[in-house]
């Protein structure tokens, strides 16, 4: 079938001027899509590209993926949980410190008990301290 240049040219112009009807636009689309590439003028090729591009964009679908905000919240929650777990592991895994000797933490209960022996002589001063406290504190009647 011969390509009707005059009609295609007229429809192209009407399409670009936005004066073409729906039927005319459909007719132009069919003419340009069916015609061999080499019979089209540069103007017609541009119209054909536009029409094909629009048609391809018509099939675009919204991606199926979780909402970005929800994704961000989930990520934040996961980071929070991971941080809490790490802190928990550190706290649980850390040995109990019973005291310090020369800045060194004592984690062995037996060693800590042994260290308390050094403080036993101080008990002798306990009574004197209590007496001093009574004398210095004014009585309230």
């Amino acid at each position, binding site marked *: 079938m011969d390509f009707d240049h005059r009609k295609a040219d007229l429809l192209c112009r009407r399409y670009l001027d936005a004066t073409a009807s729906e039927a005319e636009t459909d007719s132009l689309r069919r003419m340009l899509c069916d015609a061999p590439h080499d019979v089209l003028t540069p103007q017609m090729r541009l119209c054909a590209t536009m029409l094909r591009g629009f048609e391809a964009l*018509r099939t*675009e679908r919204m991606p199926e993926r979780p909402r970005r905000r929800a994704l961000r919240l989930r990520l934040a929650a996961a980071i929070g949980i991971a941080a809490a777990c790490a802190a928990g592991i550190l706290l649980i895994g850390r040995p109990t410190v019973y005291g310090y000797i020369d800045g060194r933490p004592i984690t062995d209960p037996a060693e800590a008990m042994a260290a308390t022996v050094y403080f036993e002589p101080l008990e002798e001063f306990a009574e004197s301290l209590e007496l001093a406290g009574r004398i210095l504190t004014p009585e309230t009647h």
Partner: protein
Amino acid sequence: MEQKDFDIRVVPLRDKLYRFARSIVGRSDEAEDAVHDVLERMWRRREGSKIADAEAFAMRSVRNACLDRLRRRRDDAELPTALPGDAGSDWSDRELVRRALDALPLRQREALHLKEIEGYPTHEIAALLSTDEAQVRVLLSRGRMRMRELLEKWMNYGL
């Protein structure tokens, strides 16, 4: 609106709303967010609301949501003129047309999208854009002419 009604009348509009949103904001992720926001709002207010034309309502809501996003971005005047890099000849028609569409002023972009991609009749486009049919035809004509210029430039010179 009942849940069933929502599923029938609103959910199938998802892709159409997304395409429209993407045309306006020019970015896929923002378009998705805008559509999700609108659908969520419509879902929350489904009871007690009587929407005669759910599609028109949803399209208008998406448009408003996208315009708000553009205002926040402060680039609503015009998107940067998009050039497809150095491989113009390798570009598919779809990407060329998308870039050319993105390079148009917002009103022309909206009108062309609704006409060419969603197939809306002129009077519905006029209602959605709050304008008249003559103005829509002007927008369509200018938009197509500008797109033709851009495509010609990119296809001939591979810019």
